[in-house]
């Protein structure tokens, strides 16, 4: 009898110890972002903000479980992205990945997320990453507004000024073409029609012919679907030269401090869609993040920091929601699908569900206008 009691007590003690060890062990989260290569302009601010916010969450005791971040560089390269995601999951036992950094990289890592049963939180607008037709759909979440939402917000703002005829200038790649297709699709519902489209390759040295064509079409507003900052600046200069006076709007790719500060007064008046407005007109949450960044010796750049922390805050909310339960990739996926209205630095109400893996919507976006090297919020 005494032996039985001793065995039971030992088993209970072992169970308590193992439970304690479980909750003491930090949950590993992979942060796979583009820290070098062309997308580093977004990736580095994303990483800096995640690290600054993490320190603050720890200091404020807002983590119910220990969380450890392991940071990797996907080098803006799909092959590297899959390699780094594999490393984070296999070597570091990460149960969720914030990243990879670009739409293409997320699509490349999607099948891996499905195979390893670990969710990806993608900071990209590319529609395809959360397409329900993807076999890996259950494992990929978007922590930024989608490209479609971006275009809709721009066209809605144009509609307010009674614009009817829209001209589109787009860069010659999949991103540019997608924007044109969305504008043609969304426009009619808002009483607008895309009457002319023109395009240019990345390194075009003159866009006056394109601007002339839009001017000749008599457009009321121009939508620039570009992510190459020099193309955006070049088009606005060309429009002024040929006498195209319709207001020009561009997508969020250019909502960066580096763009605002590098272009001259020629580009003043350009309206730029932005996820929040961290550097110039921050909301309360954004101002808090800007303060954290400054304390960490960083200068707020744009929306990169906001989508980065969207990923972090989603992970933290999912971990906190699980209490002391054992956390796996599957449990993280299930927890994220149940999150709605949790705290984040970006404006807007984040909400995920089983049927919608797009967490951020129109309420996280603002239209800004470029004036004197600053992007000032208009709405």
């Amino acid at each position, binding site marked *: 009898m005494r032996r039985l009691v001793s065995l039971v007590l030992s088993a209970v003690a072992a169970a308590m110890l193992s439970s304690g060890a479980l909750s003491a062990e930090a949950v590993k989260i992979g942060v796979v972002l583009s820290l070098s*290569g*062309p997308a*580093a*302009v977004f990736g580095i601010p994303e990483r800096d903000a995640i690290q600054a916010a993490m320190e603050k969450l720890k200091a404020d005791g807002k983590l119910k479980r220990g969380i450890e971040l392991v940071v990797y560089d996907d080098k803006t390269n799909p092959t590297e992205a899959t390699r780094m995601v594999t490393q984070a999951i296999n070597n570091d036992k990460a149960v969720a990945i914030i990243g990879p950094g670009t739409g293409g990289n997320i699509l490349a890592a999607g099948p891996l997320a499905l195979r390893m049963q670990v969710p990806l939180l993608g900071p990209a607008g590319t529609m395809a990453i959360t397409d329900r037709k993807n076999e890996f759909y259950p494992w990929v979440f978007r922590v930024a507004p989608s490209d479609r939402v971006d275009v809709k917000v721009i066209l809605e703002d144009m509609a307010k000024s009674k614009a009817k005829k829209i001209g589109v200038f787009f860069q*010659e790649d999949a991103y540019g*073409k997608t924007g044109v297709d969305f504008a043609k699709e969304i426009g009619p519902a808002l009483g607008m029609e895309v009457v002319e*489209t*023109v*395009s*240019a*390759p*990345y*390194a*075009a*040295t*003159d*866009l*006056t*012919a*394109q601007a*002339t*064509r839009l001017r*000749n079409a008599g457009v009321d507003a121009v939508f620039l679907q570009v992510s*190459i*900052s*020099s193309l*955006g*600046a*070049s088009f606005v*200069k*060309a429009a*002024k*030269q*040929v*006498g195209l006076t319709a207001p020009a709007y561009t997508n969020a790719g250019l909502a960066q401090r*580096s*763009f605002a500060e*590098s*272009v*001259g*007064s*020629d*580009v003043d008046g350009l309206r730029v869609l932005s996820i929040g407005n961290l550097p110039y007109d921050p909301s309360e949450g954004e101002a808090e993040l800007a303060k954290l960044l400054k304390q960490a010796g960083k200068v707020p750049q744009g929306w990169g920091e906001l989508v980065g922390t969207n990923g972090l805050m989603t992970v933290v909310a999912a971990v906190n929601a699980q209490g002391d339960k054992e956390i796996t990739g599957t449990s993280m996926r299930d927890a994220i699908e149940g999150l709605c209205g949790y705290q984040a630095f970006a404006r807007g109400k984040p909400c995920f569900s089983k049927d919608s893996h797009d967490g951020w919507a129109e309420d996280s976006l603002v239209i800004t206008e470029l004036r004197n090297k600053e992007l000032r919020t208009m709405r």
Partner: protein
Amino acid sequence: MYVLTEYVVRGVQAGSIYGLLALPMSLLFATAGTIDFAVGAYALLAAAVATIVAGPLGIAFGLAAAITAAAAMGGIFLILARTGTKDHIVFALASFGLAVAIASYILWQFGTQAFVRASFSRFWSLGGIRISPQGVINLGLGVLVTLLLYLLLYWSDLGRMMRAAAANPRGAELAGIPVARIQFGTYLAGGLLGGLAGIMILYSAGLDFTASLSLTLSGFGAAIIFGIASPLRCLVGGIAMGVAEALAAGYTSGMVTAMVPFLFVLIVLSLSNIRGGAMAGDRP
């Protein structure tokens, strides 16, 4: 007709920059029988440096940076030549490698920012067509530099020595012509011209780190279309490409626009082959 004329005028303005990029290729081909594919990179480097250094001094620093990069290419050329490399394609490939290195350096140092400078806020009217004074400066500079180079190549002793160095390097050396120095100097001149083109683009449309290869290809297209060995033909080739590009942007749609100028080059080269090399690719 008015619309067509406007596109042609805009194409001529844009084409002068292609002509400026084609000139270094012509010059080097005339003296060393090879091509410098780093010309676009010199233009990019000049624009990047001129962006970070304020005022007119920025232009000087930008040009100096382009010439320094071209000097590095000239050094590579001389080393390869002295170690027995005779195949001209090796020099061309080396310049391509340098171009990639320069573009990577720009990305590393300056990121993906746009290199754009404000130019004129008032425009001239030419028969109702609004013209930027900057475009006129670009065209004027392109014509001036082309004429100077033409005179240098075909009406000066230095030009004769330069052409002799390309036609028969060994014979030129035996005749006392400093072939290596001439070829190195030609690379430096290429850096200056590429840098000038970069500064013109900086004040016109602007560019970023991705521009290097595309500028080189545009310059190369302009150089070969009517004959690479003559500066005058390079300028005409550049303007023809600019006009083709403007007309494509004005009258075609979608992804076809970018294809048209190079299609135009292909057609001209093909037609000239049919006519027995009368127009393109031949040496005058």
